[in-house]
């Protein structure tokens, strides 16, 4: 069974994209023959990395005081804050992108106060967007780490004469360095990957995923030849993949060597930073940043969505007339796809998780598998989608829906395996062995011991996979030609809205607003479910 899990992983998830890229190897010369195209691709990819780097650094910087406030503060409102901090993670990024566009750029948003657009589409808006959707991930990772952290280290530091700020800087955060690195990596990977929302707010600006998407559109509207399109796509995808793998390998290797600058202390200055006044202003800034840059922009789309409830847009939507037929269909497709991907992910991921957690094949193979499983997490999803498409293209019988399933499976697979293998690792081997000595067969142990102890992790892992699949745009845009998932519909609508040459399409800002609103409400239901399910976590 474990061998089967490895084979499925290699055959369905790891190898197809690699082979896919290589089947189009011969188109690469197209790019080298066209220096302007090559420059354009290189600049786009470089933009991706610069933005990801800056955004992740800023996110960690802003996330640290927030996580601190949530775990250490005494107010009962912190629980609410904690839940709110999750919102941008749950809202599909396409809806988030439109919401941010309205807030920063649209005539109804902040810009109304200044007359004209406050922030035009382009790199700054992309950064604001990436900052917003990476923020919850960073906060979540850091909150978890701070909750697990043994407070005694910090208390020891205090009794030795260190004021709170020095204690945090010299003891707590150096010990939590792995969590800081993990938060940075996750934020970085997400920023590199995101396509749909970035595409909405990019304007004429190109980063890697937007470049790939533009190439696809230019090809389908006949602006570039097929070989040029494929060559440029392979070129950009390859650089994205190789560079991100290199960067993550570097972070992994250098991260453990990196010592935070704790050797000097400045007691008199840092004392001032420690007590009530400084802490108060720090908390205020933290909350203001969260509300003004993350929360309000993310939820701003609720305004037009709410207004739309009282117009005929709403009745049209309910009756499914006009563009709404497509919308409901895409929504159905999204959730169906999410459910299927979650189910398959569970079946093929569970043995892999046990394999990694229990080192069934020995220590080395487990470590190697662990690294391999995480690769799809750090590869930009549009690049993954492009390579997958090249691979499966050669099988003519391949229906598009199946292609979507494979693409989403490849992207979500690491999430499930990671959370499950972590959960299995937490169960002491003794418990398992005790069950064996009492007469349980291996499958009996799994059914009566492992499964009940990990059911919350299984559920939350499954919900994470489902949410990720529903909001995924990069890989989806890359593999589909006819099918449309809900976020793709949103992206297309916004693009139509932004294109002044298209008129009478039936798509108005109130339609898009309502479309986003429905997606967000559904996501909220999932968020509440997630909270409800994981609430019982502390019981074991």
């Amino acid at each position, binding site marked *: 069974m474990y061998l089967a899990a490895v084979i499925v992983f290699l055959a369905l998830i790891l190898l197809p994209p690699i082979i896919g890229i290589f089947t189009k190897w011969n188109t690469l010369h197209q790019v080298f023959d066209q220096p302007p195209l090559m420059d354009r691709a290189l600049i786009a990819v470089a933009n991706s990395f610069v933005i990801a780097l800056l955004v992740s650094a800023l996110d960690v910087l802003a996330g640290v005081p927030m996580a601190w406030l949530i775990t250490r503060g005494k107010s009962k409102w912190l629980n609410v804050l904690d839940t709110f901090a999750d919102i941008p993670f749950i809202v599909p990024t396409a809806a988030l992108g439109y919401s941010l566009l309205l807030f920063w750029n649209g005539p109804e948003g902040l810009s109304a106060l200044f007359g004209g657009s406050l922030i035009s589409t382009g790199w700054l808006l992309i950064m604001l967007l990436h900052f917003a959707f990476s923020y919850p991930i960073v906060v979540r990772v850091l909150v978890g780490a701070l909750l697990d952290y043994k407070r005694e280290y910090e208390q020891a530091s205090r*009794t*030795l004469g260190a004021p709170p700020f020095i204690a945090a800087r010299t003891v707590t955060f150096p010990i939590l360095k792995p969590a800081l690195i993990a938060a940075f990596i996750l934020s970085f990977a997400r920023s590199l990957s995101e396509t749909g929302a970035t595409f909405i707010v990019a304007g004429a600006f190109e980063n890697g995923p937007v470049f790939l998407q533009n190439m696809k559109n230019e090809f389908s509207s006949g602006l570039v030849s097929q070989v040029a399109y494929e060559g440029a796509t392979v070129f950009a995808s390859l650089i994205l993949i190789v560079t991100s793998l290199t960067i993550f390998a570097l972070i992994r290797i250098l991260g453990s060597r990196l010592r935070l600058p704790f050797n000097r202390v400045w*007691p008199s200055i840092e004392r001032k930073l420690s007590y009530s006044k400084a802490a108060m202003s720090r908390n205020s800034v933290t909350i203001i940043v969260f509300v003004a840059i993350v929360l309000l922009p993310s939820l701003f789309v609720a305004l037009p969505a709410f207004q739309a409830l009282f117009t005929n847009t709403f009745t049209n939507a309910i009756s499914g007339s006009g563009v709404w037929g497509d919308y409901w269909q895409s929504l159905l497709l999204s959730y169906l796809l999410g459910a299927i991907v979650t189910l398959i992910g569970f079946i093929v991921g569970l043995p892999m998780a046990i394999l990694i957690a229990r080192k069934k094949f020995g220590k080395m193979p487990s470590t190697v598998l662990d690294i391999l499983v995480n690769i799809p997490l750090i590869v930009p999803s549009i690049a993954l989608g492009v390579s997958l498409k090249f691979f499966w293209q050669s099988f003519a019988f391949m229906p598009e829906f199946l292609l979507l399933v494979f693409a989403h499976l490849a992207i979500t697979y690491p999430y499930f395996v990671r959370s499950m293998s972590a959960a299995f690792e937490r169960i002491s081997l003794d418990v398992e062995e005790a069950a064996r000595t009492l007469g349980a067969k291996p499958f009996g142990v799994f059914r009566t011991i492992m499964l009940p102890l990990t059911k919350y992790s299984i559920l939350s892992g499954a919900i994470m996979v489902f949410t990720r699949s529903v909001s995924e745009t990069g890989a989806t845009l890359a593999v589909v030609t006819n099918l449309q998932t809900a976020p793709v519909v949103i992206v297309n609508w916004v693009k139509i809205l932004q294109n002044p040459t298209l008129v009478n399409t039936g798509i108005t800002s109130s339609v898009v607003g309502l479309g986003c609103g429905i997606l967000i409400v559904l996501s909220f239901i999932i968020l509440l479910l997630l909270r409800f399910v994981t609430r019982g976590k502390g019981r074991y």
Partner: protein
Amino acid sequence: MPEVRVVNLTKKFGNIVALDDVNLTVRDKEYFALLGPSGCGKTTLLRLIAGLIEPDKGEIYIGGRRVDDVPPEDREIGFVFQTFALFPHMTAWENVNYGPRVKNFDLKAAGTIGHEVLELVKLHERLNAYPNELSGGMMQRIAVARALAAGAKTLLLDEPLGQLDAKVRNEIRYEMRRMAKDLNLTAIHVTHDQAEAMSISDRIAVMKKGKIVQVGTPQELYMNPNSLFVAHFIGESNFLEGSVADATNGKLVIELRGGVKVHAFGNGVEKGDRAIVVVRPEIFVVEREGNQGGNVLRGVVGKITFEGTFVRYVIKLESEDSVVVIKPSLTEKWFDVGASITLSFEPEKAHVFPYPEAGLMDEISV
């Protein structure tokens, strides 16, 4: 000078009263133990003194200065944690030097202090090792050295020997006292091990359910326990139930179960009360058949345990009570299982307490 005093100190965790209106004074340069079963509030009291938690009510003074509102870093204390809490990302030397560094001592002076302290804990090798490379005993020494290097005159120790195995524990506990005395420190040592507290402390506070039951030197607590709880918790005791047949001027006659009458002294009870006579196991004189006069109990040897220096007998009395008797193994006669014997004890060496309202087991339970 660092006398430590707490006044009316109360701390609740939710509905649980961890510390209930406690008053205590630890004298300057004293080695003081807080002793009690787990959950009695001794660690809570220590953490309150350190400032790691905040009291709900009451006052804390260290060296005459009121410190309730002073953060832990400014209380001039050293704290040794049960788990040691050595910083895992710093070497042994960096751990020791941490206090002087964050207190902005002159770096050269800090280095000197560090070395002096390490001299004191007799640890000069492996200073570049990280905590996970050290043995439990070494980690303990580094933890103590770290607390001392910050220059505090008050040392707070939270079960500092709890993580060590028995042999190392017995060696290190005397060193703790020697160091505290060499440096003229006031030390407060939390433990649940009465033997540990007895062997190294100047004075001990016995705690139970958030209150201090008795404070005294080890001898005082052993010779004159003020309650059944202390008599039970410090050393070993036999409890004989009975009722007071006569009480005049503190001279008592107690009728035990089975009708035997014994004499004792005490003021806490009156004629007709139920009472408990407490007799330490080594107080009994054991003889074969015969009447020695005074307080005599008859019984049969039920069980013998040879413990090296001592022999422990469990004697079944005629009243159905069981008592434990401890005798030196080489200088006393031996008795076999089943032998009929008589036990006697001097009235002034026994203690009498009224029978507790909640029952004996409840009163002495930990």
